[in-house]
């Protein structure tokens, strides 16, 4: 028994990522074709070379045929994956294990979401399963909003300080997004504007919430020993950890909404798989699931980037800025890159793919000598959450 991981067994050899935006002129089919085409070209392989596919989509299609039809795949295995907002990361995890097992030589994981066809702002739940009507009707914004006052009360952060901390996170991610041509929001936003935005839920204003965008991202992987057949600059998978919580946080009075146990557990597993002992010292950059600003705050502590009760100071001090000690969300994060649910987990890997190989645009390129990148992708809400944590590096060992 044990979670052993597949460190250095699987390599990423090519990726694609569409702009994330309100693609009024594109549906999931077009977005999938765009991302897949870019990934095939990036890896220098043809569609027919890829032996198996994993399609991650939370609500934009059912079954593997949601990919095999638009790509016109020729009797290839396609698995459709859904795991809330961590769907994209899950598609990679499953594809990577298939390649590591030796079952396939080349596999693609591709995520897509078309969220702007509902006629509503924000995300509209996909599940139409009949219910007894007793479930919560709360938005994700309202659920995550509960974390800020809980954290503030526990660690002595006043409401005014917390407003500044959350605004700083949003400001940082907008600053980074402004330097990313694929991002949904490519504009810096002032602290003042962020603080004075209309309230959505609890103390969260509109700039505390991630962008809602359509988009797709794709990755092509092979066994590590084959990587140099395709590219001189592969990126190796060091860890893929995943936790599905038992939803006890909203049933157990012991949970206090100041941390995410599922994220902490997934990080512990990922660090063990990758052999990371000092996350803050070893991780060069991280893409984390900043669906709402309080999420990024708590995630910094769950990932071990900051001691408990100190992440708010670190955010204010610029530790996680683009030029900070440990850049977090250098591509703008969910906040300004946008959040097409099934694609986001792979979009995060795409930024690691660019940054760790020195291919990120110069205006947002991080400066580091550290060798590892981390992506963190969650789904669900405080108290009931799934969490993915992945680690990647360009060197073996």
């Amino acid at each position: 028994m044990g979670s052993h991981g597949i460190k250095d067994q699987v390599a990423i050899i090519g990726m694609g990522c569409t702009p994330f935006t309100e693609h009024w002129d594109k549906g999931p089919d077009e977005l999938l074709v765009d991302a897949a085409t870019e990934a095939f070209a990036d890896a220098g392989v043809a569609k027919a070379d890829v032996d198996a596919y994993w399609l991650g989509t939370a609500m934009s299609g059912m079954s593997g045929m949601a990919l095999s039809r638009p790509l016109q795949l020729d009797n290839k295995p396609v698995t459709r994956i859904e795991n809330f907002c961590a769907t994209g990361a899950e598609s990679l995890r499953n594809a990577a294990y298939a390649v590591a097992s030796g079952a396939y030589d080349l596999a693609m994981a591709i995520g897509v979401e078309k969220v702007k066809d509902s006629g509503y702002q924000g995300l509209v739940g996909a599940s139409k399963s009949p219910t007894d009507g007793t479930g919560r009707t709360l938005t994700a914004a309202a659920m995550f909003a509960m974390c800020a006052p809980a954290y503030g009360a526990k660690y002595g952060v006043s409401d005014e300080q917390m407003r500044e901390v959350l605004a700083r996170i949003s400001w940082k991610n907008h600053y980074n997004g402004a330097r990313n041509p694929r991002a949904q929001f490519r504009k810096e936003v002032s602290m003042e504007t962020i603080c004075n935005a209309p309230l959505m839920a609890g103390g969260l204003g509109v700039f505390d919430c991630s962008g809602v965008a359509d988009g797709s991202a794709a990755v092509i992987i092979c066994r590590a020993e084959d990587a140099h057949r395709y590219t001189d600059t592969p990126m190796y998978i060091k860890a893929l950890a995943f936790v599905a919580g038992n939803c006890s946080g909203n049933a157990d009075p012991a949970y206090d909404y100041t941390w995410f146990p599922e994220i902490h557990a997934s990080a512990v597993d990922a660090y063990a798989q990758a052999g990371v002992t000092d996350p803050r010292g070893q991780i060069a950059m991280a893409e984390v699931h900043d669906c709402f600003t309080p999420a990024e705050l708590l995630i910094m502590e769950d990932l071990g980037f900051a001691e408990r009760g100190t992440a708010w100071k670190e955010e204010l001090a610029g530790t996680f800025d683009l030029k900070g000690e440990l850049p977090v969300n250098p591509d703008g994060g969910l906040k300004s890159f946008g959040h097409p649910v099934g694609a986001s987990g792979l979009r995060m890997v795409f930024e690691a793919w660019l940054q760790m190989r020195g291919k990120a645009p110069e205006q947002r390129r991080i400066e580091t000598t550290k060798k590892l990148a981390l992506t963190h992708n969650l789904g669900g809400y405080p108290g009931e959450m799934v969490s993915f944590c992945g680690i990647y590096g360009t060197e073996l060992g």
Partner: protein
Amino acid sequence: MRGIISAGGYVPYRRLQRSQITTFFGSGGGKGTRSVASFDEDTTSMGVEAARACLRATAARPDSVWFASASPAYLEKTNATTIHAALRLDTDVAAFDMGGAVRSGVGVLAAAFRSSDTVLVVTSDIRGGLPTSADEQATGDAAAAILVGDDDAGGSGGAGSSVIAEYLGGASVSEEFVDRWRLPGETRSKAWEEKFGETKYLPLGDQAWNAALKNAGIEADQVNRLIVTGPHTRAVRALAGRLSVSTVNAKEALVDDLAASVGQTGTAHPALLLSSALEGAEAGQVIVLVSVVDGVDVLVFRTTEAIRGYRAARPVASQIANAADLPYGKYLSWRDVVTLEPPRRPEPDRISASVASRNDDWKFAFVASRDRSSGALHMPPARVSRDGGTIDDMEDAPMSEVIGTVAAITIDRIAYSPSPPIVFAVVDFDGGGRLPVELCDVDAASVKVGDRVEMTFRRLFSADGIHNYFWKARPVR
């Protein structure tokens, strides 16, 4: 001895200042307030609240639930079964609706005293009229429940039930004439010129009064408390004046009809006033209830020694004292007179009858489960314990009467609600158990972490004509 074992009135939290109607329209309105059922209440959910209060004050349990309303939440489908489920009564307890007419409220009460069952009478009404109408300002929303039975014969509750007010007798007189009417599907009722009704009701009132006192073996000058009520304000006032003259003390005999604070609540009002009268009653008092609508019904009671030990679970008087004003615009939107812009979110789907049925105990009676080995409380009930992992080793944990504390709170301005914003709290229940649940009867800004809350039965929404009932939390007041 047959009579009243327990009673419970329910007056919703919100009040409309009648002067607001005048301010808004330049006409209509009046003095004082009327009660207003919340957007998430209907006659069934209010009936549940009244019935809970009624049963909380006694150990007796009914073998029948009789529900009456002139504004039932469902036609065809029985509403009493919802109340039955919320009270978690056994399946062999009957549940009947007797609705439609306002008179059904007093009718179901009169019938219960003539029955041999232990009957939980639940009456409930939401009253109103067109803006600026006399009905709009003079009426109110409320529910009341009376447990009727015999001494020490409390149905499944069995021994221990004591009659707090013996039913001495009564009389009903009926006559066909058009006074007040409403067609199915219409929201407003209409009334004939009041003077005509008065000429009909006064002689009927005399007749019923005399017959009832004779039937009860009581003389008028033995009557301590007199309740006279009905939608026909003019006839009620005249009859009350006429009948009270001959009572023990004419000045003090008349029970406050709550017109100034609650309004006339139609089907619910006779039982509501009876509940109210019992709250302050002493032993040995003769209480007479006179209901004036489509005839006159008179019920005569004498309180017993047992009333000394009776404490209303939620006194009507305290519900009247603990109220908050509602802006007239909100009132109009809650009653669907005006339609406000909803949040731009999808409306909920109808609930599944079969899923709801599987989860009846949770959905309607708020019964959680408790792991026998670890004691961990699971809301909703679960088969596998989150603490220790035992499988199918749970016992029922009824939570509807358990108080909780707000552990976290959030105001959701973007979620769908019939009356946004939603105020949501994570509630930790005394003795274990946590549930994120919607708060009601609150002003969003006033709720804090640490506030104490209690559960209340509400209608969350309706879709495809199916009402979705579940529980919300409200501040303990």
